[in-house]
């Protein structure tokens, strides 16, 4: 008698098994197939084109009724299997039991549902099968708002499809960038940019707290209390192998049904499993390529031959038109690896290859994925790439042309992009002037005024000359930020503004960085430029800061830290001193020192004690003194009119007011102020970055002093009659410095580049002054906070992650 084969699940994997089996020997088995879905096998991966309207369901059916009929397969579609008895060798469906000789479990996987309130509301759906797809198409008919939870492959295909059908779509993603398992940050950034161009909103680091609604979904609430309206919520946060039947039947199940290389259950060799429901050698499967390999092995096994399944690398693509991405191979830990990065900002292209032992082991590409298959081949075959290493990234067609063009960022700017901020000159005006015969910097300046004021755009103007004139223009040697780019600090600053670059990956990509994520030289600079230019949109990145600014304390040569609380204008009182003394006792502080900045330093505090000592000091009203920051340090004052017989104005009071307005602000380098009550200048105001000397008729404000490696006397900026105006000038000049100076230039260095006159013009113009103050205040609405208190709220993870020494002692 013919052997009986029962198949549970008519999905992509079992479909392929049946094809191989019936092609090889149509009469080998008497086949019965169950499927929970009320239909046979269709191409599940093409559901996304069905959702977006590019295809119909009929076009993606792979096995229709005739197909099953001609092979005499008994179809029990729309019937769930509810039990397997592998001792008795029977399978029970909702409508009755059948016996088998061989069983194939191909139940696929089930979407993971995050266990939040409201997850069962009508209008909350997952994305797995045709019914889900139809539900989305139906919901989209009414327009409205959709929230897709999950920025992976499925979530983004759902989002793109829904947007295509006219819904207003927001994607929530838990991680820092989209598709983080397949893409690195740079590619994730480009993908996000392209999706946003289609009107899809994307919120990263978004953790869903609850789904809201009475009898239908109405919205989504995030952990940070952001509320979003929603008429439809699609949950696409991941999948879990569908193993319930196997578990109940007593088959060995880890995360998936455990199988050997012949795809037989480890418990019972007459039971095969295939597809997303299996686990092999610790691996799970979520893409079709390996499932097809498995299907071949299963068919062989059923026909009495033995093959062996081996795990191979898989490549990922996203089926969203216009978002060309490719990712393959391994980016996770391995020794001795090297990156090759290529970016072409003008064409939105990013490519990264990961090489190990002279072999390609991973590739990520965005924008131009034409060579993806070729790279994937090199990965799978383990081809030695030694010979082609230099040119590998340019792909198989490389014949010695085409290299990364350092000028392409400038070439890519549209004509209306502003190049010279001072004079409002855009690229088009400059290139027109070049075309009309201005072929050097001097004549360009004369003609257009570009780079004729503060001069920070000189590099860009020169690059425009070069892009436009080619070899006719001799570029002066530029001083790039670091080895990651050919651009200078000034160019980067201006491009961040004119191209509205608001994230680090945006800078890396659009400005053609040659490394995946910068280095210790450029990262702190870029982090500062971004937060200075986009205080609201950009979020400060602690990992791009020198340790002191990350730990809000100064690291010492032995790895301990020093803690300096603020003493506003150098004034303190008995309570504060007592709190400092108590903290010194409690944390065994070895050295307590009065600093040169009129406050007290607790030196030698252990890293893990920092949050505790802060919270103790906070209780006495003491806050961070930022003795560690490229930001406002101290405002040194003298006793002034309160006590001194020569004092002309309240220098102490003014110092304190200034310190309270300026503290917390980040600046290109440290910023120190001094306010002296009279020209005797006991607060040393004439050697501070900004110094104020009070006189009978008002306040003399000087800038550009220093007393460190260089000793500089301040230059007179302006004299003003009132304290209010003094404050206005100080805030404005601070903001001007924040917006224009190169990272790690103190005011005196910046002033030497742009000229005191230019600064005086800006501050002298009352509209400009007001606008500078407004922008400073906007930024301070975020940064005028005590970082110690902020960190103590959610204690930072400064302690060791684990201690393995304890058990070792036993």
């Amino acid at each position: 008698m013919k052997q009986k084969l029962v198949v549970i699940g008519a999905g992509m994997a079992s479909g392929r098994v049946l094809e191989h089996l019936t092609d090889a020997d149509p009469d080998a088995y008497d086949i019965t197939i169950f499927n929970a879905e009320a239909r046979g096998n269709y191409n599940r991966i093409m559901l996304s084109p069905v959702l977006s309207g590019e295809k119909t369901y009929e076009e993606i059916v792979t096995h229709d009724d005739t197909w099953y009929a001609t092979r005499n397969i008994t179809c029990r579609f729309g019937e769930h299997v509810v039990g397997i008895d592998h001792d008795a060798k029977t399978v029970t469906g909702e409508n009755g039991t059948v016996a088998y000789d061989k069983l194939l479990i191909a139940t696929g996987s089930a979407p993971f549902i995050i266990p939040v309130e409201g997850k069962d509301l009508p209008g909350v759906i997952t994305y797995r099968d045709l019914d889900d797809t139809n539900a989305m198409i139906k919901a989209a008919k009414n327009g409205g708002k959709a929230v897709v939870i999950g920025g992976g492959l499925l979530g983004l295909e759902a989002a793109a499809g829904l947007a295509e059908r006219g819904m207003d779509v927001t994607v929530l993603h838990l991680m820092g960038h989209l598709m983080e398992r397949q893409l690195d940050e740079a590619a994730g950034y480009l993908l996000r940019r392209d999706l946003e161009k289609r009107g899809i909103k994307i919120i990263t680091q978004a953790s869903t707290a609850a789904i809201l609604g009475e009898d239908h979904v109405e919205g989504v609430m995030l952990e940070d209390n952001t509320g979003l309206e929603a008429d439809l919520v699609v949950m696409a946060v991941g999948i879990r192998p569908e193993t319930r039947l196997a578990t109940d039947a007593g088959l060995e199940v880890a995360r998936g049904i455990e199988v050997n290389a012949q795809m037989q259950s480890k418990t019972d060799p007459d039971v095969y499993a295939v597809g997303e429901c299996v686990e092999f050698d610790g691996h799970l499967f979520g893409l079709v390529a390996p499932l097809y390999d498995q299907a071949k092995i299963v068919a062989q096994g059923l026909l009495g031959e033995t093959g062996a399944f081996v795990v191979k690398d898989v490549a990922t693509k996203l089926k969203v038109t216009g978002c060309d991405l490719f990712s393959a191979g391994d980016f996770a830990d391995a020794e001795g690896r090297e990156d090759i990065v290529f970016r072409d900002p003008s064409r939105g292209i990013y490519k990264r290859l990961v090489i190990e032992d002279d072999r390609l082991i991973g590739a990520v590409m965005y924008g131009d994925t034409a060579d993806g298959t070729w790279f994937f081949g090199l990965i799978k075959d383990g081809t030695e790439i030694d010979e082609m290493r230099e040119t590998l990234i340019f792909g198989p067609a490389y014949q010695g042309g085409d290299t990364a063009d350092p000028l392409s960022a400038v070439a890519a700017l549209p004509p209306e992009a502003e190049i010279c901020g001072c004079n409002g000159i855009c690229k088009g005006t400059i290139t027109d002037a070049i075309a009309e015969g201005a072929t050097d910097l001097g004549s360009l300046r004369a003609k257009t005024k570009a780079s004729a004021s503060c001069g920070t755009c000189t590099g860009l103007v020169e690059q425009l000359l070069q892009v436009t004139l080619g070899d006719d223009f001799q570029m002066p040697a530029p001083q790039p930020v670091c080895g990651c780019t050919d651009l200078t600090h000034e160019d980067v600053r201006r491009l961040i503004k004119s191209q509205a670059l608001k994230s680090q990956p945006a800078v890396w990509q659009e400005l053609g960085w040659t490394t995946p994520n910068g280095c210790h030289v450029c990262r702190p600079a870029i982090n500062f430029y971004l937060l200075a230019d986009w205080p609201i949109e950009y979020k400060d990145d602690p990992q791009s800061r020198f340790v002191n600014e990350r730990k809000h304390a100064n690291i010492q040569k032995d790895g301990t830290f020093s803690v300096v609380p603020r003493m506003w204008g150098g004034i303190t009182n008995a309570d504060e001193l007592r709190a400092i003394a108590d903290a010194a006792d409690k944390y065994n502080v070895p050295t307590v020192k009065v600093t040169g900045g009129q406050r007290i330093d607790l030196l030698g505090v252990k890293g893990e004690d920092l949050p505790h000592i802060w919270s103790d000091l906070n209780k006495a009203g003491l806050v961070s003194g930022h003795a560690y920051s490229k930001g406002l340090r101290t405002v040194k004052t003298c006793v002034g009119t309160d006590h001194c017989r020569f004092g002309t104005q309240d220098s102490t009071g003014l110092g304190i007011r200034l310190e309270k307005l300026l503290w917390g602000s980040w600046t290109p380098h440290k910023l120190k102020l001094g306010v002296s009550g009279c020209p005797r200048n006991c607060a040393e105001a004439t050697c501070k970055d900004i110094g104020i000397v009070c006189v009978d008729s008002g306040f003399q404000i000087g800038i550009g002093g220093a007393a460190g490696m260089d000793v500089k006397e301040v230059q007179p900026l302006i004299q003003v009659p009132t304290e209010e105006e003094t404050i206005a000038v100080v805030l404005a000049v601070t903001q001007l410095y924040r917006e224009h100076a190169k990272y790690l230039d103190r005011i005196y260095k910046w002033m030497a580049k742009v000229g005191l006159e230019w600064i005086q013009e800006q501050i002298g113009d009352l509209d400009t002054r007001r606008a500078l103050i407004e922008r400073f205040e906007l930024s301070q609405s975020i940064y005028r906070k005590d970082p110690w208190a902020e960190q103590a709220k959610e204690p930072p993870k400064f302690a060791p992650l684990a201690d393995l020494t304890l058990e070792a002692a036993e």
Partner: protein
Amino acid sequence: MNWIDVGGIEDVPLRGARLVKTPVGCVALFRTDEAEVFAASNRCPHKGGPLSEGIIHGQKVTCPLHNWVFDLNTGAALGEDGQIETFPVRVEAGRILLDGHAVGKRSAA
């Protein structure tokens, strides 16, 4: 190998580091990418700088004290004569697994 679960990947900030105390001294775990972690000695061979406090870029770390740069794959200092020890580590299902043998811990069994 004797893989020991020392913590979750999200306990280490992206491009940040955390320490693990081990019988061979403090081992720093550097998270260079969403799911990529390297383990190496925390002590800079130059003057003992704590490498876990450095800036992490690509698969490298820069010492916070005097800017020596180390390749985390090999432990070699770039352009300097120096080397830090590296240890086998892997990330699986969001957990960081450190090789107990390599950090001087006898097998639990």
